């Protein structure tokens, strides 16, 4: 008797679980019959949060009776919290209509058919107003899968007072950008009295691939092959090992910290830093006393390729979309000339639309002009491969291992093998 009751209870509970897990997706319509379009994007600084509130209100007023736009701000943290949430939504088939994804993840979602191609969302002419760097990052298999409003770039910030004291001049054109040896010598000279020579983004996460990957490109290789199917012979090539050895020399010789304090450069504890374009606004606003400048991303010693990181979050449309026309309407609104401009202004990042620069004239002037120039002429996005999440995690781990004493070739071999294994397991057959 008792056993039977327990068995019945368990069965009931299991059925309930199964039913709630695999029910029909909910209709995305509100009580007023308006199509509800939901956006997920990372929560951001107040200026951007205000931008969202204002724009959503404007959109909803203009589309009363047809579309209701909603946005959920999701905490990103500096690790994988945002992606964890997206992964969960993929499993439960409960993705928002519009999903903001970080640039290199565009290919992952596209390859897995989580997101849809957006080629027809804008006309040929409209697309041509968007930066190539941004379109390149957001393209997979010949189709555009995401649209971004802003770009990012990284250049070498320097503390003018410390460089003057050490008698070091910085290059003022990208053709004269510091070579690795010049960069190393400067860092060496600048390391003294509790100040390190430089700061190479050490967030133990995505920042490593984003910034340090450029050293591979500059030395004539990359993380993966053109097709994005293999890292063997690229990530762990001779050129790649040289790049890793160079970066390691900065850490090993004490000219850069393996775990720098927050805002090391801003607080005068590092004489230079490889810093993002977004730092300009932070430095101007919060560190008015720091006498700083910015110069071009360092380049490999012999025949080094001029390069700089690019890539930013972009909006994609997921497979769970129900009202495609409404989504197109929203996307055309979010990435209109005007909204790209105001968004870029609020978030203090370079816009992706060429026409926005007619309004945001500050990008024609130093220091922002350095970033604009890099974006238009030397930018390289992170590798486009469906195995990117494995690649970037393995790369970060390999670099930390190298910085704590593992042989660079050995560490990079392991990372390349892990990436190739993932590609062959899931994507080689597609």
């Amino acid at each position, binding site marked *: 008797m*008792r056993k039977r*009751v*327990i068995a019945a*209870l*368990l069965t*009931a*509970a*299991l059925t*309930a*679980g*199964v039913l709630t897990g695999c029910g029909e997706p909910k209709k995305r319509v509100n009580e007023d019959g308006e199509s509800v379009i939901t956006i997920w994007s990372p929560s951001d600084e107040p200026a951007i949060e205000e931008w969202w509130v204002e724009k959503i209100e404007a959109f909803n007023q203009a589309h009363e009776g047809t579309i209701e736009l909603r946005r959920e701000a999701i905490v990103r943290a500096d*690790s*994988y919290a945002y*992606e*964890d949430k997206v*992964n969960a939504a*993929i*499993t439960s*088939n409960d993705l928002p209509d519009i999903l903001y994804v970080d640039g290199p993840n565009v290919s*992952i*979602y596209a390859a*897995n058919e*989580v997101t849809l191609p957006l080629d027809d969302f804008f006309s040929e002419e409209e697309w041509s107003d968007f930066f190539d760097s941004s379109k390149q990052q957001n393209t997979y298999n010949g189709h555009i899968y995401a649209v971004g409003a802003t770009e990012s770039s990284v250049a070498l910030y320097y503390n003018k007072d410390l460089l003057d004291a050490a008698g070091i001049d910085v290059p003022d054109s990208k053709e004269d950008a510091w070579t690795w040896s010049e960069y190393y010598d400067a860092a060496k000279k600048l390391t003294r009295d*509790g100040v390190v020579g430089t700061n190479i983004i050490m967030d*133990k*996460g995505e920042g490593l691939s984003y910034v340090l990957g450029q050293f591979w490109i500059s030395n004539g290789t990359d993380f993966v092959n053109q097709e994005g199917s293999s890292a063997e012979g690229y990530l762990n090539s001779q050129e790649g090992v040289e790049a890793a050895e160079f970066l390691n020399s900065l850490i090993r010789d004490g000219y850069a*910290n*393996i*775990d720098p*304090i927050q805002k090391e450069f801003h607080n005068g*504890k590092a004489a230079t830093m490889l810093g993002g374009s977004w730092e300009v606004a932070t430095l101007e606003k919060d560190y008015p006393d720091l006498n700083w400048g910015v110069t071009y991303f360092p380049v490999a010693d012999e025949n080094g390729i001029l390069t700089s990181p690019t890539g930013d979050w972009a909006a994609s449309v997921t497979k769970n979309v129900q009202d495609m026309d409404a989504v197109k309407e929203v996307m055309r609104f979010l990435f209109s000339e005007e909204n790209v401009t105001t968004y870029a202004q609020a978030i203090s990042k370079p816009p992706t639309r060429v026409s926005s620069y007619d309004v945001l004239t500050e990008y024609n002037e130093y220091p922002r002009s350095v970033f604009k120039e890099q974006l238009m002429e030397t930018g390289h996005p992170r590798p486009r491969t469906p195995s990117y*999440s*494995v690649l970037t*995690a393995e790369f*970060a*781990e390999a670099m*930390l*291992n190298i*910085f*704590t*004493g*593992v042989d660079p070739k050995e560490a990079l071999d392991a990372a390349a093998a892990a990436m190739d294994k*993932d590609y062959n*397991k*899931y994507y080689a057959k597609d």
Partner: protein
Amino acid sequence: MKKSINKISERRAAYIFILPAVVLLAAFLIYPSLQTVRYAFTDYNIMRPDRIVFCGLNNFTELLKDEDFWIAVKNTLYFTVLVVPFQTVLALALALLISSRRKGVSIFRAAYFSPQVTSMVVVAILWTVMYNSSPDSGLLNALLVKLGLEPCGFLNDPKTAMNSIIFMSAWQGAGYQMMIFLAGLQGISREQYEAASIDGAGKIQSFFYVTLPGLKSVIQYVVMITVIQAMKLFTQPYVMTKGGPQNSTRTLVYYIYEQGFQKRNFGYACAVAAVFFVIVISLSLGMKKIIKAE
């Protein structure tokens, strides 16, 4: 006759009382566990829930050859073997310190307990800052240098990273066990101590012959829950080291997270989780047996 009707309705009431717990357990524990076992035999990639293919024992054979997995097993056991005695002894020492009824003891009691009510993430971030390898920014290294010693790599040195985590985990966790010990200490009657002192026992003797035997069941309980908690170590490596450097702090649960969510190998992660479950269950059953045998 009347008696038996009462018994039936009593039984029915009992089932109704356990119903909510059973339903919740079934929905959030039993059902997911069964699913985990099922997925362990598939190549489930979290990006492709619509393309799950059964792959037999592949995940398990791969597991046996997976060096990172065995390192994670080793790290988890290392952590458990060291943290359990350390934390238990520390908790008992703290409990003895504050069990006296002197004035001001409650301040210390609150102080020792306070890390426990702070979120582990917060504690981990604070300790990451304290453990910073540069004497200019890390509190502990600044102290070492002041004392004329060499600075230590702490979390950046594969030799010291796990020990650093063990130390801060014991510091954070000891407060809770201290409270349990405190309750246990109060359960030992004064007369036993009096009798011991009449027989000429000193402080140390009465600790070994009165206090410890009196706390036996409490100690067993504390060790048991600490072992299970220690096996589940995740937050500290997640926040402080990301499993590095050189795999030195990659634990089983962190490895499951890394494989399942970061690298999206969900099927494989489920296989690791299944093995992990077996390890934990056999450990706790084994411990129960040992305790019973005594």
